[in-house]
């Protein structure tokens, strides 16, 4: 018996979301059971059934939340500066004869 993780899509275009896991002796039955647990109420339009062993888990904070400044990669790194410089540009225009 192997553990299979199940991802489901709630409606067309929606992202695949992790929903749970189940035990099954082979991939064929794993699909049957996934349908039962995550689709018997017509609540999903697609399922991905993946052996847990195939999933790589990454939760290293050094990689995912590195401590040094990364604001040059995010909107928040620009919004204050832009606001200030825009105000300065508008003021300069108003002061011209």
């Amino acid at each position: 018996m192997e553990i299979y993780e199940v991802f489901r899509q709630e409606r067309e275009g929606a992202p695949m979301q992790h929903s749970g896991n189940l035990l099954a002796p082979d991939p064929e039955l794993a699909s049957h059971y996934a349908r039962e647990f995550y689709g018997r109420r017509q609540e999903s339009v697609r399922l991905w059934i993946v052996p847990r062993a195939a999933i790589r888990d990454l939760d290293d904070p050094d990689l995912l939340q590195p401590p040094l400044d990364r604001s040059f990669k995010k909107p928040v790194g620009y919004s204050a500066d832009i606001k200030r410089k825009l105000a300065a540009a508008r003021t300069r225009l108003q002061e011209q004869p």
Partner: protein
Amino acid sequence: MNDSARAQPFYRHVASGGKVEMGEWMPDDYRQAVRRFIEMHANSELMGVLPEREWILRAPTLKRKLALTAKVQDEVGHAQLLYRVAEDLGKPREAMLADLLAGKTKFHNVFHYPTRTWADVGVIAWLVDAAAIVAQQALRESSYAPYARTMKKICWEESVHIMHGRDVVLTLVNGTSKQREMVQEALDRWWGPLMQMHGPPTHPAKDRDLAWRIKNKDNDTLRQEFLSTYVPRIREIGLHLPDPELRQDPDTGRWHYTEPDWKELYSVVTGHGPRSRERLEFRRLNYEETRWVRETILSEPKVAA
């Protein structure tokens, strides 16, 4: 950092609302406590199947038959989901089932009682499930995240059961006088176990499950919530509750009631309920009878010559 040094920050983390995932480090105490909590919940779903499944064959219309089969199917599904979560904490499912069948682990009181009539089916689906969902909604915020996520799915699925139960009860109260008597009689029998279901008041300081936010509300709070929502709904359709002391304080909103029989509760959950032995025996026999199937599934598939 050794385990005891890591434990303190961990307990601060969970006490302040922090979450824990499977595979992360956790103190043994916490792991044991959360696994036991979930195991009892899983056991209850599995044993809860038995009082109701008798009525699957006896459901009096096609719609009721479908609804009740689907409801019991959901309970089995919930047992599966919960055993999976508990298993990932380190105890194999077979071991949990063996302990349940040997009477070593517990399940909720209500599933130790008999069902006598079709009205019992309605009362259980409406009120027992309602009492359970009051507790289950609070568990959606459990510190153990896999359990919390499973509870969200379970709560969503349970909401249909309550509607089904309420529909059955309403049909009976709107029906013949025999049907009305049947449902009142069922309610009279189930009220005691229902009042005991959330358990005796516990001291927050002594309740580790509360301290570590495995659960987030104490037993008394849950019972008060249940009464506030459901007593008015029961009374508004003309049903009476068999407790003469049951009333709500107009100033505080707090419900007063005859103190439930905690001795009965203890006796029942330790396996001395009216149907405890019979149901465990039934499950034991059934588990033995079907052992050959599990062994077949676990053996390597053979290729045809």
